[in-house]
């Protein structure tokens, strides 16, 4: 999966987790929590969805890498390089 495809995957997950938020203006370099209402349980939902949908296991010590969209994409690129993008 390419970085832009991973970004779209994360946006799709966020759309389900925080359906009341406007994600169209989400900035990649600013923490999710500073832009949208996202608490720790929501954050765990991102981890869970990646695990369920793409079998990506993210160790707890790596969670800080998912704080921003940009950081998450960078972190996930090597983990998802062999994963096919959703149709």
């Amino acid at each position, binding site marked *: 999966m390419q970085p832009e495809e991973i970004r779209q995957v994360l946006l799709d997950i966020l759309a*389900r*987790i*925080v*359906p*009341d938020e406007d994600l169209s203006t989400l900035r990649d370099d600013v923490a999710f929590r500073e832009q949208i209402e996202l608490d720790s*349980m929501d954050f*765990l*939902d991102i981890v*869970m969805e990646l695990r369920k949908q793409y079998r990506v*296991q993210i160790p707890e010590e790596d969670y800080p890498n998912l704080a921003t969209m940009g950081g998450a994409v960078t972190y996930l690129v090597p983990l998802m390089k062999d994963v096919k993008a959703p149709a």
Partner: protein
Amino acid sequence: MYGKNAYNAMPKKRDSSATGRRSTLRILGTACLATCQSHGEPLLLRFVRRHCPFVVHSPQFQFLQRFSRRPAPGSAARSAFGMSHSVTPRERIVITGVGLTSPIGNSLSEFRESLLAGRSGVVVRETRYIGEVLAGVCNFDELRYQKRKEVRRGTRAGSISVYCANEAIRDSGLNWGEVPKDRVGVYLGITEHGNVETENEIFEISKFNYDTSVWSHHHNPRTVANNPAGEVTLSLGITGPHYTLGAACAAGNIGFIQGMQQLWLGDVDLAIVGGVSESIHTFGIFASFKSQGALATHPEPAKASRPFDKARNGIVVAEGGGICTLERLSDAQRRGAKIYGEIVGYAINSDASDFVLPYAKRQAECMRQALRRAKLSPCDIDILNTHATATEQGDIGECQAVREVFGECSNLAVNNTKSFIGHAMGAAGALELLGNIPGFQDGYAHATINLDDPDPACDCGAPQIVANQARQMGQVNYILNNSFGMLGINSVLIVRRFEP
């Protein structure tokens, strides 16, 4: 006796005049306590504390002192709300707001209209593993009081509770912004909770070869037993107590009883009470009733729930919620609240006889106890709403109990709400009571539908079951509501037309 500790602290050597004075003061103190008990008067309590130290350690004094505490200084909102903290143990308790969702209406007026029109809410529903079942399904607007994220994170029972509680608050006319939230309690009856969420998670991990690492972190907050009541506090910012009352299908009534008792205790000034159920979303309840031979089937869904009818063949499971605001009469009157009725009698008892089979003797005892507490004779009751679920033994047993207590009461109207909506489990008691409450205004006892061929074994004696058509009663003064549940738990509520 009074003041044991104070007594021990006194000098051992006492002259007879001191003993005589103390004896007089004890009598005076006891008289003051009796007066306080009638009027909840803090001044008198202060007098007792100062002049009659022998009684200050008595349970009566401490009880009254607890209920006579003054509001915290500077508590403007509390004053504006005008609720009293000083109560007598048996202050009158009234229903001042109603919120509900049922398979035939999402407000009291819609629900009542459907009941009087004889409209069923039973439909065919697809259920995991089992396929098509008959169920009472609610169709309320979850997003009226919740964000989509809150609906996703919470439970169906939580959404039902949030909807009903918000509707009840709105209906009560309370200025919610002014209500001290630490003086509000939430007490909701449930038959069960957590089955739906657990089944969903097991189904989910079954798609991952039962890999438990995909088990949701939301499972615990969704399945804790207080979830439905807790979601109400989150929605309304309530910081007083909240919990659910697990009482099988007797739970709806028990929510009311718990709230009433907490108002009596002075623990809260506003009780949000009732019962809720999400049970149609668990396949287990259908499968278990089916295995028990107690799940209704019928080619026409609207005719499936048929208590007291010879052709009945079991229970139709329903979801729903019925939630009310309860207040002390003095508080309700102070703010000029609309009053739906006054709870005047209640009882809860246990069969101690069987896991599932009803026991008419204990049901009759429960009804008698409620009548005694209400200081009524059986024939004072105008409408008796039955618990009957359309099972063979349940219906016959309850009719036997009704016959035993009310057998001579020819004017009593016996009806059944489950014939319209099915069995709403934890919500049943609340919805069935609320469906009858408008009878105080319109004078009708709603019918028992689908009663085409009455089972002779379901004879209630002189009282007649209101069959298929609502009955105009003239004036309705008292409604008695039965709710019984598995493991032999019985609950009865008696509500009176409000008279100041």
